[in-house]
């Protein structure tokens, strides 16, 4: 038994030494057609567990491989929808030899993490980080949440009937998306149309089930509801399901949301939802990779601060089917 233990210990030591030396070995550098070393780009999606995350990830990968395949070596570290994983993920990427990190982060201040990248001479490009402190230390590609909200708010101001009575379903309290999207409705719809009355508003936390329950209760209270606006399409479709389950006709109410994804497009095509606003993943990927390419060519400094906005677009009956066809092509509708 003692002999066995000794043999086992010796084998373990040999294995550990081999692993250690293997780790210290020189890594073969990949070079592109231009002869210049490929830049290692690590993409960190917030989550690959929801449609937008999947769409964004697929689009990034496709463009990175097709358009920038000779310049970028692409890899992905998923953040598992957990803000606490960000520091570890960034450190791991640096250890792996990342030249640039492209991260779709959460609503937290990551200035220190970004500063770590700056100190290590690793590029950092944020996606949709609507925080001034980030844009002041590195590049940030974002949609302006207020503009996104305005897309729908302007449409509402033009199309809501006179003396309309409306209800609002907000996202989580305190989130930039909640604050700015709601502010857009106030400034671009309510302020310009003083005849409109807000009957009530609640935080439904981007949760379809919660939005459905709240709307079911609203239907017991208000006889006339001309429109329901929600800060996300999931909540809007939840409101529509509340009408169905309560046996109330959806035709007398207009439904507005934000995101413009499959659920919304299908609902618009079926004449239930009225309009939504889209932040196109294609635009995000194109613009972000352009910034990364500029760093590769030297046109742009490694962590030169800058804000790059993508344009949101309105989704309504005129283009919903077109978007649906695109989602089907991308494999986002099964």
């Amino acid at each position, binding site marked *: 038994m003692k002999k066995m233990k000794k043999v086992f210990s010796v084998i373990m030591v040999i294995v550990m030494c081999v692993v250690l030396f293997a780790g210290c070995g020189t890594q073969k550098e990949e070079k592109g057609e231009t002869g210049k070393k490929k830049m290692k780009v690590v993409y960190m999606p917030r989550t*690959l567990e929801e449609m937008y995350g999947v769409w964004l990830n697929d689009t990034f990968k496709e463009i990175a491989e097709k358009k920038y395949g000779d310049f970028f070596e692409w890899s992905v570290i998923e953040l598992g929808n957990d803000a606490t994983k960000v520091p570890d993920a960034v450190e791991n990427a640096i250890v792996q030899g990342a030249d640039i990190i492209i991260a779709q982060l959460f609503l937290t201040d990551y200035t220190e993490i970004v500063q770590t990248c700056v100190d290590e001479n690793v590029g950092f490009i944020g996606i949709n980080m609507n925080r001034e402190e980030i844009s002041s230390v590195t590049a940030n590609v974002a949609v302006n949440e207020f503009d996104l909200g305005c897309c729908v708010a302007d449409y509402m101001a033009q199309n809501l009937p006179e003396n309309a009575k409306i209800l609002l379903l907000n996202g989580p309290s305190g989130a930039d998306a909640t604050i700015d999207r709601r502010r857009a409705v106030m400034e671009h719809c309510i302020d310009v149309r003083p005849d409109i009355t807000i009957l009530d508003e609640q935080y439904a936390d981007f949760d379809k089930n919660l939005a459905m329950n709240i709307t079911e209760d609203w*239907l017991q209270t208000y006889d006339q509801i001309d429109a329901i606006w929600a800060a996300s399409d999931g909540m809007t*479709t939840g409101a529509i399901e509340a009408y169905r*389950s309560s046996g109330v006709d959806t035709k007398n109410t207009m439904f507005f949301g934000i995101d413009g994804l499959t659920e919304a497009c299908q609902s618009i095509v079926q004449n239930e939802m009225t309009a939504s606003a889209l932040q196109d993943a294609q635009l995000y990927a194109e613009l972000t990779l352009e910034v990364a390419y500029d760093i590769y060519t030297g046109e742009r400094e490694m962590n030169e601060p800058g804000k790059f906005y993508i344009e949101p677009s309105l989704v309504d009956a005129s283009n919903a089917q077109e978007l649906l066809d695109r989602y089907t092509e991308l494999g986002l509708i099964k």
Partner: protein
Amino acid sequence: MKINPLQLKTHGSYTRFRKILAEYGIFFITLGLIIICSFLHENFLSSRNLLNIARQISVIGLLTFAEAVLLISGQIDLSVGAAMAVSGVLAIDIYTATNSIILGTIGGILIGIIISTINGLVVSRLSIPAFIATLAMQMAARGAILIYTGGIIKSNIGEFRTIGQGYFGQIPIPVIILLVSAVLMWILLEKTTIGRKLFACGGNVDAARASGINVKNTILFSYIVAGALTGLAGALQMARLNSSLPTAGEGFEGTAIASAIIGGIAFAGGEGNIWGALIGALIMGILSNILNLMSVNSYMQDILNGLIIVAAVALDLRSKRGKR
């Protein structure tokens, strides 16, 4: 010492009153809540709103029954929300493949049973605490369904939504499903030998073992029953939302456990009944409904819900102490 017969009579009535209060305390609390709510909002007592509340608690009610059966047998399940999502999503897929609502629903129930049976086997055969085993299952099930769906939501599930949104006469189908399940659970717990075994295992597992009960199989059985209810809840939830939503049911286990405890199911096991569990779910539904009707801020609702839950359980415990 002389005993005053009048005093004895009064004391007897008082004891009887305490006993009734102890037995039906939670029902009186619910009645009181309904009376208060009827003064707070004119539409609260309308038949339409009462059906609305019943419809809203149908899914959480089924999950409450699942937790109730487990708590009674001395177990707990933290994976019901995730298992509900898995069962619901797969129920929709089975429905899509077969075009049969019945097959879809049965499929959902079977998936729920499979997941919960794994929990039961891990707990009863490997002696891993239920808290740990079901927490692990929660993570695994949530991950599995997100990998399976790729996070993609399917909308407009067709006729399957009937079981979540349809009506039989004036009564919503989910309410009928909830009530039928309650009757079946009542028969199981109160009128069968296995039901008594569940109480015995939850009350005192050593005594149950000593009296010849196969504790391992009884625990496994409780998980199987809970799994069937969870699977049914999954099918119902997706039908209600008219979507195959892989993220559905997040946090539902907490609400279900709270509802069961409010309904008088002992957290330590061996005590409670299914009607109490139903009342527990109803109290949660009534609170949410009245606060929405009164336009109370949703975060304020959370605070009030927390306070009212503690008050309801404290009152119930107090009345039970009186019983002893």
